[in-house]
């Protein structure tokens, strides 16, 4: 008899595929968005089954929360966009055929992949500045990647801002229900608490800046959506500095370590844990503010 574990995994995988197909074949844009939100939920379950709790945490915040909000937020505009004519049957057949070919190639490669030897990384882990392996990779071994990632985030925000009309007053928000406001008042402290908890745990267990940042961003977006906070312009005042804090901290630490030991982002012995925590703090702020900025861009009166 098939074990329940295997059955669960089989069913989960099949439902992912089915949902992917349903999302693409959806009749309305709204239907596609809703299917994709449920798809994100099932993806989070798959990460769990693959022993990737860090990824599951990020997916729970991103897939089940942020992406849905972004897509539904753009729906009103997207429905009005004029689109080119639907591709013809031959084009579709060609696309289907190349998709099938791609799948066969990928599947053959995955099945015939030789077993991999254990990683040399395991030996280096005790030397890392963080106990948790994923955090160690993100902020110690491959800290350069994370530095560049925060640069990408800032770049995306700048690009989105550049597409907007310049000075435009915020759109007066429609009156929102009092029930929602009281829920948000209830959820907000919990969200901030959870973000802090995830950040603190990141050093020795699944969690960290990515998860904490997305949770904070989701809380901020909820705050904006419920009209408890007037929409504010992240381009004014000290906000840009806060948005850049992760990137700036990273560059500062890189320069500091360069001056201290000769190699950028090679932490001095004993000081690694503190530096990693500092970087995570900055990264959390950058991720949270970048997502809030990306969400609220294009939502002012001149744009609608």
């Amino acid at each position, binding site marked *: 008899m098939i074990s329940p*574990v295997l059955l669960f*995994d*089989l069913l989960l*995988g099949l439902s*992912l*595929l089915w949902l992917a197909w349903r*999302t*693409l074949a959806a009749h309305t*844009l709204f239907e*596609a968005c809703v299917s*994709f939100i449920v*798809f994100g939920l099932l993806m989070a379950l*798959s990460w769990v*089954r*693959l*022993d*990737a709790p*860090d*990824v599951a945490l*990020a997916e729970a915040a*991103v897939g089940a929360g*942020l*992406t849905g909000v972004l897509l539904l*937020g*753009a729906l009103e*505009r*997207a429905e009005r966009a004029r*689109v*080119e004519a639907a*591709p013809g049957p031959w084009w*579709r057949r*060609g696309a*289907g055929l190349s*998709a*099938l070919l*791609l*799948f066969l190639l*990928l*599947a053959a490669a*995955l*099945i015939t*992949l030789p*077993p*991999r*030897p*254990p*990683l040399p990384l395991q030996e280096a882990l005790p030397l890392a500045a963080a106990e948790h*392996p*994923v955090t*160690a*990779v993100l902020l110690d071994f491959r800290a350069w*990647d994370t530095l560049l*990632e925060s640069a990408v985030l800032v770049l*995306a925000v700048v690009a989105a801002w550049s*597409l907007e009309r310049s000075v435009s007053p915020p759109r007066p928000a429609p009156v929102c229900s009092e029930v929602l406001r009281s829920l948000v008042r209830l959820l907000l402290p919990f969200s901030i608490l959870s973000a802090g908890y995830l950040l603190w745990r990141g050093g020795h267990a699944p969690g960290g800046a*990515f998860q904490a940042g*997305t949770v904070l961003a989701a809380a901020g977006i909820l705050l904006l959506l419920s009209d408890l906070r007037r929409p504010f312009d992240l381009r004014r005042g000290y906000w840009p500095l806060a948005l850049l804090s992760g990137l700036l901290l990273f560059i500062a630490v890189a320069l500091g370590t360069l001056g201290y030991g000769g190699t950028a982002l090679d932490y001095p012995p004993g000081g690694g844990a503190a530096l990693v925590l500092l970087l995570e703090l900055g990264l959390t702020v950058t*991720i949270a503010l970048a*997502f809030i900025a990306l969400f609220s861009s*294009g939502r002012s009166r001149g744009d609608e």
Partner: protein
Amino acid sequence: MSSALWFSLVGAALVAIALYGVFAEHHPLRRLIALNMMASGVFLVLIGLARQLPGRVPDPVPHAMVLTGIVVAVSATAFALALLRRLSRVQQEEG
């Protein structure tokens, strides 16, 4: 077949389905959703491979890459949506 290999294969199939979607759909928002789905498929392949290491602990490097990938994918999606808004506005002004 191990669970890890199974999920990798599902990831590969997702990439293929999404590829079809990117080419066969004509609405930009649907294409964007298909692209996001393709990213999910790629992540699934990566994490599945990370799980296939000997021993119980998965390889943390793909996990870190996927975490970075998720954040970058969301910001790219948000930027694409900003482009879409702009497109629809320009079309509206042209009448």
